[in-house]
């Protein structure tokens, strides 16, 4: 038994976020979030066991009333077994189910949750079953099922993907308790990198048809050191995922000076009122396996992301030690 536990692979990180918040209607306050991520895995020729655990300690420190509060929490983000043979892969348990392209606003994301400002955001795994069948080295078929007690409330879908003329192309169909969706995505190069994901979905409750789209491009200079991209998101449905607008513009610029120092600057603009969130970070490798980052979120404009509506701006000092 002891030998079994020794033979497992352990990795993860210990991260501390020191957060200074400047709320609109209150005094600045400080909070501290420490997170331990522990991934335990074991793999052989046909099986992968994977466990992704989190342990958090959140502390609030108020200078005004000299109070200190601590909260502890534990969670299992993923716990699955993956079985694989030459032609197929089966995954059972709590897992990330990814269809479409891994980008912000991905129209095909299952259990989509868009929180623009959550630096701590970690996707929550989904209990279910997924499978991937190989057609050829670049083509395949993904299928997932997220079962519920009542079958009609279960989610299911597939992603049929291939690569044609250097473009990754996929056809996705998803059925969930509210919508039936179908759409396509592609990512490839026409000198610049381009990507687009488009989905038509039928709402079974109000019997309406809607359309969701994300299109963007990216390019880099100085041999990939300076990398920028822009994406435009549109959803015909104006009340979707709690978003306050149905049109957003997302821009990013990253400058990787080297493996030890990089800068990133992102903007998210509500395209209706043109208010913008400015999100920036500088990450420095202090020593091997340990980085320090300074992150900031600054609201601006007169709409959704204005200071008086957004409510605060914040600065975070993050220290992360990977193991």
């Amino acid at each position, binding site marked *: 038994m002891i030998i079994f536990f020794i033979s497992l*692979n*352990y*990795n993860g990180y210990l991260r501390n976020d020191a957060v200074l918040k400047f709320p609109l209607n209150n005094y600045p306050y400080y909070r501290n979030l420490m997170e331990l991520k522990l*991934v335990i*895995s074991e*793999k052989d020729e046909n099986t*992968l066991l994977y466990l992704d655990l989190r342990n958090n300690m959140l502390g609030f420190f108020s200078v005004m009333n000299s109070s200190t509060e601590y909260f502890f929490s534990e969670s299992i983000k*993923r716990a699955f077994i*993956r079985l*694989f043979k*030459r032609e*197929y*892969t089966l995954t059972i348990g709590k*897992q*990330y189910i*990814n269809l479409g*392209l*891994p980008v912000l606003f991905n129209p095909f994301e299952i259990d989509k949750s868009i929180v623009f400002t959550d630096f701590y955001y970690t*996707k929550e795994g989904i209990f279910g079953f997924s499978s*991937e069948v*190989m057609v*050829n*080295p*670049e083509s*395949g078929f993904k299928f997932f099922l997220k079962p519920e007690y009542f079958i009609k409330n279960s989610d299911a879908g597939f992603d049929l993907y291939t*690569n044609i003329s*250097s473009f*990754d192309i996929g056809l996705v169909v998803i059925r969930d308790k509210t919508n039936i969706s179908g759409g396509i995505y592609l*990512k*490839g*190069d026409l*000198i*610049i*990198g381009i990507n687009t994901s488009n989905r038509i979905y039928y709402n079974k409750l109000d019997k309406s048809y809607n359309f969701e789209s994300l299109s963007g491009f*990216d*390019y*880099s200079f100085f*041999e*990939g*050191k300076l*990398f920028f991209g822009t994406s435009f998101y549109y959803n015909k449905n104006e009340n979707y995922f709690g978003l306050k607008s149905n049109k957003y513009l997302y821009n990013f610029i990253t400058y*990787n000076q*080297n*493996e*030890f120092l990089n800068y990133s600057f992102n903007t998210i603009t509500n395209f209706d009122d043109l208010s913008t969130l400015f999100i920036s970070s500088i990450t420095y*490798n202090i*020593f*091997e*396996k340990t980085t320090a980052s300074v992150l900031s979120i600054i609201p601006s404009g007169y709409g959704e992301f204005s200071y008086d509506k957004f409510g605060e701006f914040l600065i975070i000092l993050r220290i992360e030690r*990977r*193991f």
Partner: protein
Amino acid sequence: MLILFFSLTSDEILKKIDDNFVFNTIKANATMTIERDGKKLVKEFILFGKKDGNRFFIEFINSEDRGVKYLKIGNELWIYFPDADDIMKISGHMLRQGMMGSDISYEDILSDEELRQKYTSELKNDTIIDDKEYFVLELTAKKEDVSYYKERLIVDKNMYAPVEIELFTKSGRMIKKIIQERIKNFDGRYFPERIIIFDLRRKNSKTSLEYNELKFDILVKDDVFTKQNLKR
């Protein structure tokens, strides 16, 4: 007494170099050390390669990058991130970026053409290093769209393996220098166990690649080079 002197042409030397460095399959276990301004990052990976179809597969096994995988098929590259359990295609314009922040660009890895296909060669005067004579070859690209327009190779006369490679832009600026050490015989093929790459556009920067295990022309199954294998 009749003495015959045989001297190889530059193209013949280049062919012998290609014979050393072009293989049908490769399996390697390597340590990559990235050094900048006195700081160091160490990464370990397992590499599989197959000439047929220009394919390779890399899996990082050091703890902080464990499970990050690269798949190359032809001139396309995908990366798998275990934190997201998802695969991302690398845009073509990003291929000149250093892999995992190293001085080895994705294009350096993607390049599997023989030198003779890409370059014309010219044999220069021999050079002497530590009392030993070496060939000096200068290569010029046949086409414009190559990563390095000119190369200067200092080649061991017995093993036909470069011990030093200098890489130039079209304007003549040297941008990278590669030192190849511990050249060993692998069943008739001379290959370095240690490669040190200096990107001269970066100050105090070098990446060294050390092969801990190296096997050529062994059976590597086609299943390795699939997108599905990235998630396994």
